[in-house]
């Protein structure tokens, strides 16, 4: 690991100033950053430790009914908050389907949003990677790429964003509160992550010094609690990243879907909101035909970036399955194997 300076600022403003310097990065739990530093993938000159800052570890309901989650709340504390899990069950299930219990105890909300791709070529410093070394090329493009993107990719980068948490969050219109050199601002989570274009080295719209201080769920996000699921296909049942995942959330009144939310994970460089699919689920009955149509719409623009055409069909099926499970109703308790399609389910046949 390359040597670095360590600073522990006493305030958010001081942290922003310290991290705005070239070569500086924020340190929260470090569960992804330290791994990247050990491998020489990330080589910061200065770590700005934000873990001791006050006021960033609260979960609070605001006057208008939104929920504000401090950036330093751990993934485990959020998922195990009973009120949170009742109100946003798909988000809790997504959190518990990610990483391991040890990592969830350490990893933070803000860090989860800003974790880097797990593309093996990004991690291997002997490989060419435009995200790690702009302009060097992309060895994933002709390499082992069955896990790579099928939406939003370009010739310069076919990496995916690995977060589970972000998938239901983006479906529920989460907002990200950012403190930067110009003061406080907000960005919709859907606008936080960037598609690669020809600058895949920039994962997000954040500028130097920008610190995520909170994630907010708007009041309407609670309206989906009765019909919400997150489903995740992995290459092993636990402690693995998504091959494909889907968050489905429905508002059902008198047997009709009045509003649907759908997002996909593991398919693109950002959590992928499927608005065209949501549109066809407005004011229709929750039927298999409607869900098939939605799945088709969600993947209309998908194309393989390598040996991963199977992910497009897999994503369609997981969308149908997630919508079917959501329509059947949120389970009273998060299943023993969170988000697993192999968990015992009621009333849902394989699509």
């Amino acid at each position, binding site marked *: 690991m390359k040597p*670095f300076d*360590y600073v522990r600022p006493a305030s958010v403003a001081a942290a922003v100033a310290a991290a705005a310097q070239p070569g500086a990065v924020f340190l929260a*739990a*470090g569960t992804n950053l330290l791994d990247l530093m050990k491998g020489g993938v990330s080589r910061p000159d200065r770590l700005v430790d934000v873990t001791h800052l006050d006021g960033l570890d609260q979960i609070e309901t605001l006057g208008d009914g939104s929920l504000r989650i401090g950036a330093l709340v751990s993934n485990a504390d959020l998922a*195990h908050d009973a009120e949170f899990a009742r109100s946003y069950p798909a988000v809790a299930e997504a959190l518990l389907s990610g990483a391991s*219990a040890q990592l969830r105890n350490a990893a933070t909300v803000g860090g989860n949003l800003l974790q880097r791709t797990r593309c093996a070529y990004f991690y291997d410093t002997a490989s060419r990677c435009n995200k790690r070394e702009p302009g060097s090329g992309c060895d994933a493009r002709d390499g082992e790429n069955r896990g790579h993107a099928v939406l939003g990719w370009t010739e310069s980068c076919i990496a995916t964003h690995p977060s589970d948490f972000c998938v239901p969050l983006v479906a529920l219109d989460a907002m990200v509160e950012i403190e930067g050199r110009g003061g406080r601002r907000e960005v919709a989570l859907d606008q936080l992550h960037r598609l690669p274009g020809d600058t895949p080295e920039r994962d997000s719209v954040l500028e130097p010094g920008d610190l995520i201080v909170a994630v907010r769920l708007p009041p309407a996000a609670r309206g989906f609690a009765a019909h919400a699921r997150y489903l995740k296909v992995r290459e092993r049942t636990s402690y693995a990243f998504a091959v494909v995942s889907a968050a489905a959330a429905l508002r059902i009144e008198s047997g009709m879907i009045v509003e649907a939310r759908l997002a996909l994970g593991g398919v693109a460089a950002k959590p992928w909101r499927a608005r065209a699919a949501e549109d066809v689920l407005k004011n229709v009955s929750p039927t298999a035909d409607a869900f098939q149509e939605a799945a088709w719409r969600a993947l209309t623009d998908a194309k393989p970036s390598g040996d991963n055409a199977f992910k497009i069909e897999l994503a369609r099926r997981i969308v149908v399955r997630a919508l079917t499970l959501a329509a059947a109703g949120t389970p009273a308790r998060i299943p*023993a194997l*969170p988000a697993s399609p192999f968990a015992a389910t009621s009333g849902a046949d394989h699509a």
Partner: protein
Amino acid sequence: MNHSISLTVNGARRDFVLDDPRVTLLDLLRERLHLTGTKKGCDRGQCGACTILVDGKRINSCLALAISHDGADILTIEGVARGDQLHPVQAAFIAHDGFQCGFCTPGQIMSAIGMMQEAQAGNDPERIRECMSGNLCRCGAYAGIVDAVLDAQGQMDESSQRRSA
């Protein structure tokens, strides 16, 4: 630049001067305190052999910078027995053959103790397997590990019932 930190390790306060901020909690425990029960397996947060409790919660000590944990209360495998009296989880691992080579065992035991404190799995074997998935065992002693955790969970439930009765 030197940085001073203090930790409570297995109940005792320890002060350190770090001449390099790169030191992880894992390396600090092993190299500075010679508490070598906590194992370095992958050193990348994938195997769980380095699991310790920090402020009561299990984490991977290989992915935690010591300097960032100034003031933390740390429990390692060396701190769970009372003298010669093994922790119930330790005893259960012996009773149920919850290991073969033993390399992953300290991490498995610390993870199981942390899991019981989290109280999410209860005595459901499927939930125990899921909640222990951050600890790999290359020998494949998983069946014995799950039996050991179930047994220890049962004993600790009983003793807490006795205490409250």
